[in-house]
């Protein structure tokens, strides 16, 4: 049986967000695309867009990002039909309609490192969807080892990390006020609270098990709801006192 790489159903399926600056409420994840970074070891004019390639499970130590993360350069490239993903550009990831509707390609065999400070100073211009990240992972494994791992295996492995990132985004959306003055500090604090909660409550362990994942998600959302209610009551109390 011939092994082939997979393709998205359509161009839209690979993006969670594109064509806008992705806000800071979305936790940093594999497949995020940043403009304003040139990787070390490349001429300054070689590229100014990169894609994060570090696996979601290895991005953070606790609630904090690792000091260095893997990234690959992204350059303008050919717009290819989804069907051609299976046999063409196998060491690259096609990024259709990335900037002003123009296609780009991420070169997976030219990976280097970026720092969290570089990411903070740059614009996140796209974020891959779960399907998009799995396609990236499949091509990354192929580019580095010439092994083909099916998407269902990659999806099963990454499911707990995806669930945590989705829940953290919900916590950020609910707990970080739009007018927050020090957003990085507030988001770091929420990430810390979230990490402490999912570890101590057993939610993290249950998210790792397919049979318990739905219930774990529900518990994390219940906890978020009670924290929002507590925060609202506290704000009301402060207003009354003032």
């Amino acid at each position, binding site marked *: 049986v011939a092994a082939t790489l997979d393709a998205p159903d359509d161009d*839209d399926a690979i993006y969670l967000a594109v064509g806008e600056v992705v806000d800071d409420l979305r936790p940093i994840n594999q497949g995020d695309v940043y403009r304003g970074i040139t990787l070390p070891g490349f001429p300054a004019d070689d590229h100014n867009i990169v894609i994060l390639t570090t696996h979601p499970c290895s991005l953070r130590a606790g609630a904090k990002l690792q000091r260095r993360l893997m990234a690959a350069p992204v350059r303008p490239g050919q717009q290819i039909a989804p069907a051609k993903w299976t046999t063409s550009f196998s060491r690259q990831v096609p990024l259709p309609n990335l900037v002003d509707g123009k296609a780009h390609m991420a070169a997976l065999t030219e990976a280097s490192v970026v720092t969290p400070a570089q990411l903070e100073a740059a614009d996140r211009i796209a974020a891959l969807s779960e*399907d998009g990240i799995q396609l990236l992972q499949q091509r990354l494994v192929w580019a580095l080892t010439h092994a083909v791992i*099916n998407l269902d295996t990659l999806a099963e492995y990454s499911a707990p990390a*995806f669930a945590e990132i989705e829940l953290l985004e919900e916590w950020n*959306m609910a707990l970080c006020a739009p007018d927050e003055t020090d957003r990085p500090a507030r988001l770091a604090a929420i990430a810390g609270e979230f990490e402490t909660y999912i570890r101590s409550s057993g939610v993290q362990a249950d998210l790792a098990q*397919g049979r318990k*994942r*739905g219930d774990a998600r*529900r518990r994390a959302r*219940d906890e978020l709801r009670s924290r929002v209610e507590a925060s609202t009551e506290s704000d009301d109390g402060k207003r009354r006192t003032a």
Partner: protein
Amino acid sequence: MSTDAITSRPSNPAASGSASVASSPAHSVVNRPTPSSPTDDPTTLRHMHRDLARPLRDLDRQQREERLRETAGMLGRRDPRELLEDAASTWGLSWSTIGRMLGVSPSAMRKWRRGGGAISSENREQITMLSAFLATMQTCKEPIADMGSWIEMRLRDDTTLTPADLYASGTEGRLLLIDLAAEVMSLVEVLDTFDDDWRTRYARDSAFRVIDDGPDGERAIVQR
């Protein structure tokens, strides 16, 4: 109706012979079908069962579909964003799975969650249908204990197909899932009806698998 079927059945030799059977109080015609009754012949019964099975299944299916649409109609009065929130908070579904089941792109789903992006009337119908489906599944014979987990899990360990996949395929897939929950179809019947080539088309990765105890004690992808 063959009289052989009647005369050969009694184990009591004294009861053999149709005249003595009919006259014996122990073999009253009130309690036993007459030899001429069509319901007394197993072969005829099997034919009747076969002939009735399809129309009965179709009728049952129509009623389920009707109830599903009726429930969706009722839920259609509610705010679609509230229904989406219910799918996540009450049922424990992930947003990415909700989007996949509704057939909307991940970016559209993300905009909805953040309160932006208009929800078209077609998508609103899809959202109410999903809510009706989730509610209906809980009224079945064996309610799903953890909907958010079940909907994302493989239906069998030899296929990649999940309930979310069947749901996303359209009305037929949804009704198959309801039939499965109602225990009127077996799992293999559901899968065969969905796609008779499911064993090949939706086969799992034959080369790699995920294990819980990798080299560093964490989950890992290893060769089968």
